[in-house]
């Protein structure tokens, strides 16, 4: 258990392990994440960052240990309730996971609709989201015709569309130039101020220094360090 105390923790992991066949992706991870925390997950390629995030929204199930997310015990949750769990999250996937056969607008509208927003307000909402990530002029384009950075920005817009309690961002600025990256980080900060818990997986130490926050360092599946890095004065 960390110093954060479990009463205010929105996510609690206790002795969690994840194995893929013989391959151990995560080993003995115990970690509390406080409500409204701004957390970085760092570590070299293949350390287990993406795997850890997947466990939280049941993209994968843990091989061992307990995970509790916003009061839901993930090892006990029924199949029917999984969508309910996932709607607590806004996820920016490392490979974006945009639907290639639907245009940018529909990719986002789908999430907005799925979380149950009234049909009348969908259009306004989607357009405002696209404006936020500076993609409103590409709203009719299909994902395969977007540049890497453009896809990533659409993925960000989709993640925040449902106004989620927890934002999970896997390498959210990997394909972005410094300016666009700053816009995205500003956006995540904004949602953080509005009350969301934000978890960012990245190997980009410059990015971490730019905003500061607690950093969890993974290495080869082990939790190596949990430390707070201050914001770098520019």
């Amino acid at each position, binding site marked *: 258990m960390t110093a954060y105390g479990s009463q205010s923790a929105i996510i609690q992991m206790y002795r969690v392990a994840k194995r893929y066949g013989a391959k151990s992706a995560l080993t003995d991870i115990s970690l509390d994440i406080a409500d409204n925390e701004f957390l970085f997950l760092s570590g070299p390629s293949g350390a287990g960052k993406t795997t850890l995030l997947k466990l939280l929204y049941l*993209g994968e199930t843990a091989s061992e240990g307990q995970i509790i997310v916003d009061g839901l015990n993930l090892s006990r949750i029924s199949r*029917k309730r999984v969508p*309910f769990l996932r709607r607590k999250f806004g996820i920016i996937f490392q490979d974006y*996971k945009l*639907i290639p*056969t639907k245009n940018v607008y529909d990719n986002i509208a789908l*999430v907005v609709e*799925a*979380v149950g927003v009234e049909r009348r307000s969908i259009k306004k909402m989607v357009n405002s989201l696209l404006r936020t990530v500076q993609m409103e002029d590409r709203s009719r384009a299909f994902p395969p015709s977007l540049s890497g950075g453009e896809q990533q920005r659409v993925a960000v817009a*989709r993640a925040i569309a449902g106004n989620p309690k927890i934002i999970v961002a896997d390498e959210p600025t990997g394909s972005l130039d410094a300016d666009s990256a700053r816009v995205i980080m500003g956006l995540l900060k904004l949602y953080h101020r509005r009350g969301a818990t934000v978890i960012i997986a990245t190997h980009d130490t410059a990015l971490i220094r730019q905003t500061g926050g607690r950093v969890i360092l993974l290495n080869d599946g082990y939790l190596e360090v949990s430390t707070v890095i201050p914001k770098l004065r520019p």
Partner: protein
Amino acid sequence: MIYFTQKVLKDLKGNLFLNAVTVASTALSVLIFSAFALFFVNVGALANRWVEDARIMVYLNPDAEAETIARLGEAIKSIPDVRGLEFVPREAALQRFRAQLGSQGSLLDGIAENPLPDAYEVLVKVRSWSWDRIGPVAGKIGAMDGVDEVEYGQEWMGRFVNILNLLRLTLYGMGGLFFMGTVFFVANTIRLVLYSRREEIEIMRLVGASENFIKYPIYAQSLFLGMIGGILGLGILFQLYRLLEANVANTMSSSFFEIRFLPVEIAAAVFSGSLLVGWLGCYISLRKFLRS
């Protein structure tokens, strides 16, 4: 509702090639299956028309009295499977026989006395698939008072009916095969459509869409495809039928053999079948998909 239809149409447009294949598969399956049904209906009708002509000749004892004959008539009429009977006096029988002999009718000119007995001609409620029933009826009549002999073309009719039944057996078997084939093909094409959408479905699930939110549009799409396929298949069959009919009318001299289109109930059943197949294909595939 309008909104929903729009969504379905949008989905269809998004994957035009696969959807076109699904519709074409369904249409072709429906076409083949209903062509088969059409063939079957017509052969069946033809066979029944022939078999309905079957009748039992009941030759009476030469020394039976009028009263016995009348009583016998009543008794025959009361047999459940009998649908009619007619008394054929011996003179009429000779007349008929002469007519049947045709050009060799002159043979009978030399005959001194009419050797034929009086007879009853009995019509039996029998269809090609229940030909076996005629035997017991004939047996019952044969055992009655005043009956000399019973005849109903056992041999050639029996042979004909046997062949018809074998034909029917084969056709049933093939019909079953076709039906299975249709279901299999259509279900699989829909499955392939889903397969091509699995990325999309997976993503929808990851972003928290409920199972129903994912399923309903897919069901709607499948049913829609099934519907279009069914309409197309039946439509094409109808056109083919009209073509064939026109041809037959030209080449066949006798109007005795007229062909008919599928009765409404069967057409409706085939159509519902195509919807059902669309639904079923979707159901099976979705179960497999959503489980994983």
